[in-house]
C-alpha cells in the first residue's frame, strides 16, 4: 500500500512539474543533461553520510538506552534515580541547542579537563543524536520489559538464573517483539533528525541540497527531491522492520 501511495505522490509532483513549466524547472536535476546529472549526483552522494550517521547514532542510542533503562527498573532507589534524572534531563533538551552545545561547547569543556579533542561534524552529530534519542529508547525498553509477566522473572529465579541471565535468556527475547516496532519508529526519527547535522557543516542530504540551492536558485525542485530522498529512506526502513516482525512472528507461532 505504501508503494502505491508513494508512486502516486511522486507522479503527481512530476506531472505538476511537466504541466506548468513556468513554475517548475526540473532541468536543474534532469539526469539527461550534463549539469542536471552532476547536480543529482551531488545530491544523492549525501545518502552515504545520512545513512551512516543514522545507523551509528541508532546503534549507540539502543546501547545507551538499555544501560539507562535497566537500573531504572531496580528496587534500589539509588540505582533508579540517576536513570530517571538522565531521562528527564535529556528529554527536555531540544536537538538543535544540544547539537550546538556538543559541537562548539564540548571541546571547550574537554580542553579544560586537559583533553585536547576536536569534535568534527560527523561525530558531533552522532553523539548528539545518540544521546538525545537514548532517553526515548530507554523508556521504550522499560515499557517493553515491564510488560513481561512478573511470573517469568520468578520462574527464572527458582531455577537459579541470576539477574543478567534472566534478562538475556528469558526477559529480553520476549520483550524484543514488543520493543521492535517503537524502536523502529525511533530509528525513523533519527534518520529525519540527522538533517540537523547540516547546520554544523556535515555533508549529508540536507546540507548538499542547501548548497545546491545557493548556486542554482531552484529551491522548489531541489527541496522536493530532498523530501523524496528522505521518503525513500524511511519507506525502506519501514519495509525492513515489517519483514523482521513477520519473521519473528512466524518463529513464535511455529
Amino acid at each position, binding site marked *: 500500500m505504501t508503494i502505491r501511495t508513494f508512486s502516486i505522490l511522486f507522479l503527481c509532483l512530476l506531472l505538476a512539474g511537466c504541466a506548468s513549466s513556468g513554475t517548475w524547472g526540473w532541468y536543474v536535476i534532469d539526469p539527461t543533461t550534463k549539469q542536471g546529472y552532476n547536480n543529482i549526483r551531488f545530491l544523492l552522494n549525501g545518502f552515504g553520510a545520512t545513512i551512516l550517521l543514522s545507523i551509528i547514532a541508532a546503534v549507540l542510542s539502543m546501547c545507551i538506552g538499555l544501560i539507562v533503562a535497566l537500573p531504572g527498573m531496580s528496587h534500589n532507589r539509588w540505582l533508579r534515580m540517576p536513570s530517571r534524572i538522565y531521562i528527564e534531563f535529556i528529554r527536555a533538551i531540544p536537538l538543535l541547542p544540544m547539537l550546538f552545545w556538543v559541537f562548539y561547547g564540548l571541546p571547550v569543556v574537554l580542553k579544560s579537563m586537559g583533553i585536547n579533542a576536536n569534535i568534527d561534524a560527523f561525530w558531533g552529530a552522532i553523539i548528539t543524536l545518540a544521546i538525545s534519542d537514548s532517553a526515548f529508547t530507554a523508556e521504550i525498553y522499560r515499557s517493553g520489559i515491564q510488560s513481561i*509477566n512478573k*511470573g*517469568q522473572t*520468578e*520462574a*527464572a*529465579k*527458582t*531455577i*537459579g*538464573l*541470576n539477574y543478567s*541471565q534472566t534478562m538475556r*535468556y*528469558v526477559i529480553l*527475547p*520476549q520483550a524484543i517483539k514488543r520493543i521492535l516496532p517503537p524502536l523502529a519508529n525511533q530509528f525513523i526519527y533519527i534518520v529525519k533528525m540527522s538533517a540537523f547535522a547540516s547546520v554544523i557543516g556535515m555533508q549529508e542530504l540536507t546540507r548538499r541540497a542547501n548548497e545546491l540551492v545557493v548556486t542554482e536558485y531552484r529551491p522548489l525542485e531541489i527541496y522536493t527531491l530532498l523530501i523524496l530522498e528522505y521518503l525513500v529512506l524511511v519507506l525502506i526502513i519501514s519495509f525492513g522492520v515489517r519483514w523482521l516482525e513477520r519473521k519473528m512472528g512466524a518463529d*513464535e507461532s*511455529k
Partner: protein
Amino acid sequence: MAKAIEIKRLNKWFGSYQALKDIDLNVSHGERIVICGPSGSGKSTLIRCINSLEHHDSGEITVDDIELSQNKASIAAIGAEVGMVFQQFNLFPHLSVLQNLTLGPTKVRGLSRSEAEERAMRILERVQIPEQAHKQPSELSGGQQQRVAIARSLCMEPKIMLFDEPTSALDPEMIAEVLDVIVDLAEDGMTMIVVTHEMGFARRAADRMVFMDKGEIIEMGAPKDFFEAPKTNRCKTFLNQILQH
C-alpha cells in the same frame, strides 16, 4: 540430622497489613507437608518466603543449614536447591519444552547441552510427556504445561520442592494427571511443601497437614487426626466448607 527447613518466628508485612504472624515450622528431610486454609491466609506468602521470592521482615528461615538473610549470596545458593511450581505454570513461552528444561542445568549447573538434554528427556519420561519435548508450551494442554513446569524444576535436582496451588488453574479433568506426578515424587522421598485445596491428594500424600488462617498457623497434625478430629473451630468450619462439595 538437621532439618530441611527451619522457620522461627517469621513475620511479614505488606505495608501495614501483616501477612504472616510469628510462623514456626520445621520440615524434616523427606517430609511431605500440605498447607491449606482460606484464601488470603498467607499460605502462598509463606512458601514464597522459603525460596526468597518475598523478603521476610523478621524471624529466621534456615533452608538446608543455610540461613536466609537479605544476603544475596545465600539467596542465590538456596535458589537452585529449592524448586518451585506455580499456579500459572510460568513456562518460558519463547522456548521449546526441551529448552525450558535445559536452560537452568546448562546456565546454572554448567552441564553440556547433551548432558542437559539427556537429563531433560529422562525427566520428561518420568512426568510421562517425552513426546512433547520439541513443542512450544502454547501447544500443550494446561495439565501438560504444569507437568513441564514440574519437570523444569526437577531438572535442577532440587532438594526441596514447593508447590503453590499447582492444580488451581487447571480444568478438572487435568488435575489428576498433575497430582499423580506429585504423588510419584512424594513416594520417591522428595521433601515437599504443597499449598493446595485438593484434600484427597492431602490424605494420600501428606505426612503432616498445616492449617493457616489470617497469617497464622492454627493447627498442625497428621492427616488422619486433622481430617477426623480437627481441634479448632476455624479449622472445622474450613473443612466443612471444602469437603461438602
